[in-house]
């Protein structure tokens, strides 16, 4: 009798959208607090991109006059989009690794044993990554702005860039969460880091595609990271135009939708195996 009541309650709870949203918000709060309470884990994803931005500015400052280089006020202005993407990519790996850690240490199983919304487990975790991605984007913009990383699109452009940063974080976070759900291993998630690093270096994150030649240019053109970076860069260099805003928002949104679909499938697959 008690057991039947419990099962019925669980069914009722998971079917109520309001409860599912409340549970997702609680899990999102948990994942956000977790990120902010462990600065040693998240700080590298902020410090390293900033270091590379300043290093790049001093190293490649003279290259802005090269043929094919877009018209910029400084290399830092060009680099801003690359810095945001780099930071958000690395931050998203941290978020997904935390989901894998939940699986490893049994917290995921306890959530499954409780009447918790299943998709809330995934979306709650991703919400933390999205908030962190937005925060990182804002930090990078305001940290580099005084040194010459102008945003031509102004304050509206900055807002659009923050939204774009959050969407990139959602897209990459969802892809990395798929790895976490598939493997259940934080080591495996961290193991994807070199792959992201390779994708980043074979993109237009640090140098424009127009200055590349041959196979490198082709690879950078096919690399989705190039398109994520160039959307953001358009806001930074071209101003607040419909085309720039659409590129900055729609490209990561499209990738995020596909990534969420994959992550949701992985979640269902893991739930079936339980």
């Amino acid at each position, binding site marked *: 009798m008690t057991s039947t009541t419990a099962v019925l309650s669980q069914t009722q709870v998971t079917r109520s959208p309001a409860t599912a949203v409340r549970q997702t918000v609680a899990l999102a709060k948990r994942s956000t607090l977790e990120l902010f309470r462990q600065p040693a884990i998240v700080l590298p994803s902020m410090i390293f991109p900033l*270091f590379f931005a*300043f*290093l790049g*500015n*001093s*190293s*490649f*400052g*003279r*290259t802005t006059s*090269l*043929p*094919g*280089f877009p018209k910029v006020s400084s290399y830092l202005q060009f680099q801003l989009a690359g810095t945001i993407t780099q930071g958000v990519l690395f931050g998203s790996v941290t978020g997904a690794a935390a989901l894998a850690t939940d699986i490893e240490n049994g917290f995921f199983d306890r959530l499954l044993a409780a009447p918790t919304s299943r998709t809330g487990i995934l979306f709650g975790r991703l919400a933390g990554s999205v908030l962190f991605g937005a925060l990182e984007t804002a930090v990078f913009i305001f940290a580099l702005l005084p040194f010459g990383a102008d945003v031509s699109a102004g304050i509206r452009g900055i807002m659009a860039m923050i939204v774009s940063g959050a969407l990139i974080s959602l897209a990459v976070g969802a892809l990395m969460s798929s790895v976490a759900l598939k493997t259940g291993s934080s080591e495996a998630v961290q193991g994807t880091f*070199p792959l992201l690093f*390779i994708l980043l*270096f*074979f993109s237009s994150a*640090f*140098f424009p595609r127009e*200055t*590349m*030649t041959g*196979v*490198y240019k082709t*690879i*950078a053109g096919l690399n989705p990271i190039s398109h994520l970076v160039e959307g953001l860069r358009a806001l930074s260099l071209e101003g607040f135009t419909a085309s720039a805003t659409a590129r900055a928002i729609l490209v990561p949104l499209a990738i995020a939708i596909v990534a969420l679909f994959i992550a949701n499938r992985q979640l269902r697959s893991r739930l079936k195996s339980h």
Partner: protein
Amino acid sequence: MNTATHTSTHTMISEKDLHTTTMRSAGELIKRSLINTRRLPSAFFPTLAMPIFNMVSFSGTFFALTKLPNFPTDRSVNWFMPLGLAMGSAFSGVGLGFSLIRDLENGFYDRLRMSPTSRVSLIVGPVLATWIRVTLVSVVVFIAGFLLGARPTAGLLSYVCSLAAALGISTIGAGWGLGLGYRFQDMRGAAIMQLSIFLTMFMSTAQVPLNVMTGWLHTVARLNPITNIFRLSRSGWVNQTDPGYMSWSNAYGGLLAIGVLSVLSLIFALQSLKNIDN
């Protein structure tokens, strides 16, 4: 008199024995390290892949750098191959620190310390094993570089200088990695090892020559001794008309930096090891 002679002879034999033990122990540690490389290729793979990836990606992405006025070479792979080699060597050296931490955590190192082994062999053995690995990596990188279009401008000496720089950087990295490993004895040390090596390498002429740099980096890179090591490594890969082309004046700074930094880092490792024993 007889007793004195006997004691002296006895001491001499002991020292000789000790020397033999040091070399034998170091030899066994080299053997262990190489067997580990063969049995666990996945652990060695990143050391091999990193310099190749570095060389390929940098020379492709930053190809346009060679169009800058007074850039030392018109082949981007000539410029970035020594960077890949240096990064691979540095992390190969620092990787010793990671292995040490693993050995400390699983108790293997305690067994080594309890054995009648010379303490010097615990450092010399792994460093020599790193040299062997770095030489192997260098050969592979030279072949990959050649296939990508790298061409030496000073013949065989080009390879010799790059190899000397790679071995030097690996020794510095090894001393630093072992020293930090002995001090921290857990993975906290690993983060410092990676970060410090990474920052030191990149705040030099790793990416661009001094005449291309601007601002703070130019000042830092000019003072950073790693810049001298890069000059040595690249001296046989830049144009013959470039001021950085192969000459004694371009080589001695790098050799001196390697010598001084290697000695300092190895002393740091030895002192840190002694701290554990005490």
